[in-house]
Structures are given as structure tokens and as C-alpha cells.
């Protein structure tokens, strides 16, 4: 069974929320800035957040995807063909990687594998000695024969796989990611297991990402991981290494869902109420450089989707003008969506942070 999309991208629906300015207006509505919903920066010591060093080069290679998940913060989908990283921009990324000691390249999208330069870029990163992580939606592996050899390609290049699977139940997974996604994801996970991923003593790592299928916060990551491992092995014979519990960001299609379902205010309030100062130190924006499909630089993938570029002179906001020293001296751009990363145990692309 293939994937049947339940929703369309905001862009294809011509939704007002496809305009990042409109999203920021919602997040910064005047009525929101009161004691119950203070400005995020005011929650931080000295009202600012500084980077540590650049450990992770996260590159969003495009918005093209074979799925249209209901919560997608990228507003990715099959219709997003225009936003795909060019060979020239990839080469500019490789120049920066070659000139710096950034150790990890974190590739995301969309479905990164749909970018025609994807495999070449992975091989070039490996040639530079970088650790490569790929955020694979799983279903792409079984979507088309030309992708069937992806597990072998990933294994050959020792690519760490990070894949979304919001639940071990088909109902909860498909309600978020589209009908048939769960079954295709299980098939793909088995194929990854077959080439050595998540097997005992194997260097090939396969990590899953859990995010809530609705307007609630994730529970304890360790407990969720234990239950996912038990259920996926028991029901489907599937193995994985770690589960990352990630909070849904109130932006893009998840923001659309929150507004449409009248859950926006309660959800934002739950994020604010769950603000955890201990989560701030481990935030991913402090050690990540986020690059968009067209080469612009951001503090994180969420700021990227809100088009909040790094604080820097214009020429240094693009990968072609990357200046590591200046980058490490910048202040991180904050907004109200940042509450999503500091709620409870915190949230990052690597799961809970405290």
C-alpha cells in the first residue's frame, strides 16, 4: 500500500499561514504579551542566548517530500518542487565543511533523498571525514524503485539514520503522517535492519523520532523509548537504537492545526507553563549552523521556516559569506516559538535536552 495524503501544503492551499510574516504576527499577537505569556527573551538571563561552538552543520536540502504530514514545520510536500538545493549551493556548503572542524552534517528536508544531488553530497561529506546524519521519512525507501537501494547506500557510507515514527500504532502514525505511512515505515525499518542498522554491535545507528500526534506535550523520553522498543519488536520484529522525543513547534502546519482546532491558546499556555530554565543550556541552536535550500544561514530549522536569519551583516547571512568567528559571536534570534524547545525536558533535533 502506498501513502495517501490527508492534507496539502499551506502553500498549495494559498493559506495566509504560508506567509512567515503572518505566522510571526500570530505568535506575537498583542494580547499574548502579558503575565501569562511573557516575551521569550525575558525568561533568559540578560534576555539573550549565546552560541557555544559549531558542532552540527544542519542542511535543509529542500521542501520536496513524498508526504504531507499534518504537523510539518517545513510545509513540505510533493508540490514543493521549486525549493531544492542546487549543486552550486551544495558546493559552497562543502567548502565551509572542508575549512572548519565541524564534525557532523545533519541532512534534512523535505525528503532529502529526493534532491538529485543528495547521494553525491553524502559521499563528499564522508570524504571530508564528517559524520553524516540523514533525517529520512522511511516511506521514501519503498516509494519508488529508484530509492529501494537507499538502505545499502546508507550502510555503505555509515550514515546515521534519524526517522520520524510518531507512534507504534498505525492509527496514531497515519493520523499525523498520512494513510499507509505506518505500514510503509515498518517495511522500510525492516529493510534497514536487514542491512545491519540497529543490530547488536553494529556501528550503523537507527534512531526514531517521536512527536505527539496532537496538541499535547511529549512524555518522558526514556519511558517512551522502552515502550516503543517493546511494541515494535513484539508486533513487527523491528529494532532501533534511540528514541528522540520532540515537541511540536507552534509554526507552519502545526500552527494551522492549532488554530483550526481551537487548541492554539491552550497549547501555547502549556508550553509557557512548562518553561524549564535547565533546558536552555542544551538547546540545539547553541551549537548548530542551519542552512536553507537557497544557502541562507539560521540558528535552527525552526527559525529557518520563519525566515528569521542569523544576526549578521547581510553578506554573512549566506553560506557563500560564512565567517565562523563572527558566527560564534552572534546572538541567537529568539521569538515566541522558542518556548517549544524549552518546555518540560526541552526539545531538540536530538530529543529531550535535560
Amino acid at each position, binding site marked *: 500500500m502506498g501513502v495517501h495524503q490527508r492534507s496539502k501544503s499551506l502553500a498549495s492551499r494559498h493559506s495566509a499561514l504560508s506567509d512567515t510574516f503572518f505566522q510571526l504576527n500570530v505568535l506575537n499577537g498583542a494580547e499574548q504579551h502579558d503575565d501569562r505569556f511573557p516575551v521569550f527573551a525575558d525568561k533568559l538571563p540578560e534576555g539573550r542566548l549565546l552560541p557555544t561552538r559549531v558542532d552540527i552543520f544542519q542542511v535543509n536540502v529542500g521542501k520536496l517530500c513524498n508526504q504531507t504530514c499534518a504537523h510539518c514545520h517545513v510545509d513540505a510536500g510533493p508540490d514543493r518542487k521549486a525549493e531544492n538545493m542546487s549543486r552550486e549551493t551544495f558546493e559552497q556548503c562543502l567548502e565551509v565543511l572542508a575549512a572548519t572542524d565541524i564534525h557532523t552534517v545533519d541532512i534534512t528536508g523535505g525528503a532529502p533523498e529526493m534532491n538529485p544531488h543528495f547521494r553525491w553530497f553524502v559521499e563528499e561529506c564522508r570524504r571530508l571525514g564528517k559524520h553524516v546524519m540523514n533525517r529520512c521519512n522511511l516511506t521514501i525507501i519503498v516509494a519508488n524503485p529508484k530509492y529501494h537501494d537507499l538502505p545499502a547506500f546508507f550502510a555503505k557510507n555509515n550514515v546515521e539514520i534519524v526517522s520520524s515514527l510518531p*507512534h507504534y*500504532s498505525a*492509527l*496514531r502514525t497515519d493520523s499525523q503522517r498520512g494513510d499507509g505511512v505506518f505500514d510503509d515505515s515498518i517495511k522500510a525499518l525492516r529493510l534497514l535492519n536487514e542491512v545491519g542498522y540497529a543490530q547488536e554491535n553494529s556501528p550503523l545507528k537507527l534512531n526514531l523520532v517521536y512527536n505527539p*500526534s496532537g496538541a499535547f*506535550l511529549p*512524555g*518522558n523520553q526514556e*519511558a517512551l523509548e522502552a515502550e*516503543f522498543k517493546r511494541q515494535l519488536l513484539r508486533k513487527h520484529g523491528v529494532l532501533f537504537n534511540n528514541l528522540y522525543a520532540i515537541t511540536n513547534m507552534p509554526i507552519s502546519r502545526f500552527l494551522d492545526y492549532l488554530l483550526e482546532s481551537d487548541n492554539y491558546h491552550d497549547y501555547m499556555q502549556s508550553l509557557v507553563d512548562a518553561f524549564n530554565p535547565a533546558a536552555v543550556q542544551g538547546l540545539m541552536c547553541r551549537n548548530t549552523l542551519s542552512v536553507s535550500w537557497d544557502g541562507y544561514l539560521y540558528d535552527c530549522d525552526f527559525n529557518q521556516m520563519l525566515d528569521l536569519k542569523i544576526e549578521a551583516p547581510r553578506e554573512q547571512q549566506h553560506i557563500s559569506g560564512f565567517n565562523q568567528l563572527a558566527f560564534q559571536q552572534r546572538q541567537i534570534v529568539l521569538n515566541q516559538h522558542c518556548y517549544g524547545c524549552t518546555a518540560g525536558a526541552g526539545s531538540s533535533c536530538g530529543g529531550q535536552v535535560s
Partner: protein
Amino acid sequence: MSKKHYFDPEDLKKFGNIGEWQKPMADKFFSWYGEVFKEGALTEREKALIALAVAHTVQCPYCIDAYASGCLEKGADEEQMMEAVQVAAAIRAGSTLVYSTQMMNHVKNMSL
């Protein structure tokens, strides 16, 4: 008090306010309550499922909302939540039906 109904979902958010009129007892209750729901011999997910089942038995709409959310947060799915409610319903039904043994005894005692 202009409300014309007994249950308002917004009142759930005021649960913590019960300490306004009897703080020492409320503090003890919330401390104990928090301890009960911590992971122990049972996981937090299992405790949330038990709470959901009990919430249906005591027919508390606040508790049903709270523990439907709680179960989702702890990673339970719809099937598990409905099975928990079925367990509660089975005990309720069984506890009614088991009384029928008394009825049967009585009927037999007064019959030829």
C-alpha cells in the same frame, strides 16, 4: 455565579486553588498525589491508564479530560485507552451482576 451548568472545563485549571481555603490539607494531598503518579513498580503510562479507567467509573469529567491527555502524553494509544475503559466497564457490570446471586438465593429460599 451566572453559570447554568455544573461542569466547566476551565474549572480543571483551578484545581490547585483548593488550597485557598485549607492549605495544609491541600498541600498534603498534592504532595501525595504527585508521589502516587511517579514511576514505580508500575510505569507512568500504566498509572495513567488506571486513572483513566477509574475516572470513567467515578464519572468525573475533569478526570476523564485530564487522564485522556495524560495517557496520550505518556505514549498510550486509542486501543489501550479503550481497553482500560472496557476493564472499568466490565468491573461495573460484573459488580452489578454478582449481586444477582443474592437475588437468586432469596428467590430459591422462598420458592417450593
